[in-house]
């Protein structure tokens, strides 16, 4: 049975002047899948992600996100996706609730719905006590989880996470991934970039980028088998070394 595709990318090229940031990328992401985008810093992960979110336009290639064309239907795409940036993306001088309400508002949710969902969310995250505290007064791990919840607050079809777990302790990172699984369970497609190789094993499928190109794509176990490696870390090191020798 053909699985439904959430994102299709064909021959995506992005150039900045003479520098090629994305060199002929082709891949599909299926609905409800957790798709990992792996690579060292500067490998072109964030660039590709920004193109898919409509933040940046590609030099060439056919790209379809959530059923919409990335060139002509950017606005429709934006209504159907969530995005969590590399930098921490909530407002420190707004309270927990105000942050939720603001982001709910810019996605056009009704105030009644925002209130209801915000209450549920705050309860689920255990933030009831700090509901009306400024964000600057709560710990980083909680903020990160809140940022993710806010990114999927409007029930997008796809959510893009750009290195969401940077600077977070292992326990919170594990909890964060539990939340990602929950979201995937609800049918949200998740595309996540990371350079933590242990996180790669949490993904359904991963794609490893080296110097702007896709070096390997598949499930973590397939990749480990193909490369005769012990774990994802080895897979990545082998691919990266091979690229350097060429």
């Amino acid at each position, binding site marked *: 049975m053909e699985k439904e595709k959430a994102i299709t990318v064909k021959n995506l090229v992005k150039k900045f002047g003479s520098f090629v940031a994305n060199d002929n990328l082709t891949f599909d992401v299926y609905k409800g899948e957790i798709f990992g985008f792996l690579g060292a810093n500067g490998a072109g992960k964030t660039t590709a992600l920004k193109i898919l979110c409509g933040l940046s336009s590609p030099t060439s290639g056919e790209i379809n996100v959530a059923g919409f064309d990335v060139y002509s239907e950017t606005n429709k795409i934006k209504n159907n996706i969530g*995005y969590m940036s590399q930098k*921490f993306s909530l407002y420190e001088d707004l309270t927990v609730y105000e942050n939720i309400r*603001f982001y709910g508002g810019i996605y056009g949710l009704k105030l009644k719905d925002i209130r209801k969902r915000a209450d549920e969310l705050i309860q689920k995250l255990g933030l009831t006590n700090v509901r009306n505290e400024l964000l600057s007064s709560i710990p980083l791990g909680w903020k990160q989880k809140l940022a993710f919840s806010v990114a999927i607050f409007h029930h997008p079809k796809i959510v*893009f996470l750009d290195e969401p777990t940077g600077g977070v302790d292992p326990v919170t990172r594990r909890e964060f991934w539990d939340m990602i699984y929950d979201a995937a369970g609800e049918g949200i497609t998740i595309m996540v970039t990371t350079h933590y190789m242990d996180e790669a094993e949490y993904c359904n499928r991963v794609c490893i980028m080296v110097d702007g190109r896709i070096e390997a794509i598949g499930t973590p176990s397939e990749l480990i088998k193909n490369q005769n490696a012990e774990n994802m870390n080895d897979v990545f090191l082998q691919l990266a070394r091979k690229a350097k020798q060429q």
Partner: protein
Amino acid sequence: MKKFIGFVKKEYYHIIRDPRTLFVLIAMPIAQILLFGYVITNEIKNASIGILDHSKDEITKQISSKILSSGYFKLDASINSEQEIHEAFRKGKIKEVIVFEPHFAEKLKKEGTAKIQIIADASDPNMANLLTNYTEAIIRNYSIAITTQNTQISLITPEVRMLYNPELKGAYMFVPGIIAMLLMLISALMTSISITREKELGTMEVLLASPLNPFTVITGKVTPYLLLSFINACLILLTGYFVFNVPVNGSIILLLAECLLFIFMALSLGILISTATKTQQAAMLISLVVLMLPTILLSGFIFPVENMPLPLQYLCKIMPPKYFINIVRTIMLKGGNLATLWSDTLILFGMSIFFLMVSMRKYKIRLE
């Protein structure tokens, strides 16, 4: 529209929750106007002078007492010889010395003329100019008085009237300039900082990845500052009126409308700066250097444009504050209306549209 209100609300929280900035924004206009109004003054009061009287006769004593009783001068050191003059200037005790030649009254009677030398400390040229002018005026009055007494001939006496600012108050001159300076500062500086802050925080990306229209983002960001700037303009006008009695002779509605136009222009400049910079510091630096200096120096705020070298005069012509300051002065002091100000207003309007178009274009390009 709902999204827009939500956005403005968020900006409002940012401003209100940063009490230090808010305090500066509200207190600054008042502090500035008081400072400028009291510190920079062209009036002379009790300037220390010395008198070297080689003659010590009836007439020199009369002239001396006339000068000293005017209220502008006070006698600091009696100087007895030429050598002491330099000493006294160097010590900075006095600003001016008046020297009467020997046998002053005698010469005046016999030859009909006598010499008074006025020596001023021109290390502060403006001050020296003012002092000598005042002294000359007093002596001239005296000489007119005695000649008419003696000869019964009425000489031509020019009667000077200072229009629009009869007491030559400094505040009349500075209030319009301060309005321009502060509106520029708050509108351009604060907008550019608040936009670059979102860039630094990474929230700008999230906003742009949302269905929010980029123009809603920008208008939402500038609206609170537009209000704030407008309140500030009113505060300055009120302080000027109640503390320094600076009148608004023309239409107050026209004045406020022109303020809004200028704010509009400054906000566009702020957006333009924020598209060209990545960090708050860079935005602040550019705003201060590129906007504030011309507003103060090249606008006629303090230094008259007409006295500048020609290239600088041309440079002044492209500075929006020049037009705005002229507009505000004309409305406040001369009671001017749109009929007299239409050309300046049109230029300012054109500049606003130009900067707005350029900044929107640049902002769009940045989205790529």
